[in-house]
């Protein structure tokens, strides 16, 4: 099936992402990070001015947004690979901040793959601003739909 290039540049409805301690702590535990700055408020305040987020924490936003905030092309979930992920972190993100994210499809293209057959690539970019309107981060992801199942 031919890919639909018209989705390139499509922007989602801005979404709100409150940075909550319980979620940050749960995320730090999940990646087996025992760093006390995620668990000890006093220490975090002294060292970081508040509880910071792990470098990949913004990834959580990719999953709980409404469909109208996350423009996408339809991929078969059995054949999805996460190819690349990048975070640019411009300013500190601390618990208590309220971020606004805006996602856009930066590119969609096809390429002949190896054992996976023809592959479709989708590049998404999410820009985050904090409650003061400062650009704090940009997250870029490349999702790939392979021609056949991805495991093994």
């Amino acid at each position: 099936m031919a890919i639909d290039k018209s989705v390139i540049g499509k922007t989602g409805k801005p979404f709100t992402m409150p940075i909550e301690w319980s979620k940050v702590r749960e995320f730090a535990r999940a990646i087996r990070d025992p760093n006390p700055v995620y668990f000890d408020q006093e220490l975090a305040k002294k060292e970081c001015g508040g509880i910071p987020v792990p470098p990949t924490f913004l990834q959580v936003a990719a999953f709980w947004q409404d469909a109208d905030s996350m423009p996408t092309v339809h991929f078969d979930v059995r054949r999805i690979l996460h190819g690349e992920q990048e975070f640019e972190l411009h300013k500190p993100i601390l618990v208590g901040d309220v971020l606004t994210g805006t996602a856009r499809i930066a590119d969609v293209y096809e390429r002949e793959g190896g054992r996976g057959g023809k592959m479709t690539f989708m590049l998404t970019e999410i820009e985050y601003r904090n409650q003061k309107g400062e650009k704090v981060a940009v997250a870029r992801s490349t999702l790939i739909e392979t021609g056949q199942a991805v495991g093994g």
Partner: protein
Amino acid sequence: MAPKVKYGSVKIGDSLPTVTIENVSRPDFVRYAGASGDFVPLHYDQTFVEAAGIPTVFAQGMWTAGCLSRCLTDYAGAGNVRQFKVRFARQVWPGDTLTCRGKVTGKSEKNGEKLIEGEVEVANQKGETTVRGNFAVAAA
């Protein structure tokens, strides 16, 4: 959020702290699914993956990337990572033991901030790279 790394004393080729993740297990994937909201069934639903022709569930790439990010925060201090990019090369399976490591490849200044740049990777117990990446962290 004072940077831990002193720009002047960093040399190209310096190693970052190594982080070892022993015995990757299914509960890691389930915990990360809950923490991140990544409920793609490839990572916890055995029935689903077998039907798709995959032998077993495997780690979310971003779980492994999260483990790898500890090299950066242990090195530079949380809140001092400015850029982190990962590319996923190979799946991580239950039972794997992972070594997360990295080294400094460059130093620069951008917008008045001193930066240390480098490469990181996650290797499994067979020595195969599962995730590779590059980074920039702030230095004092």
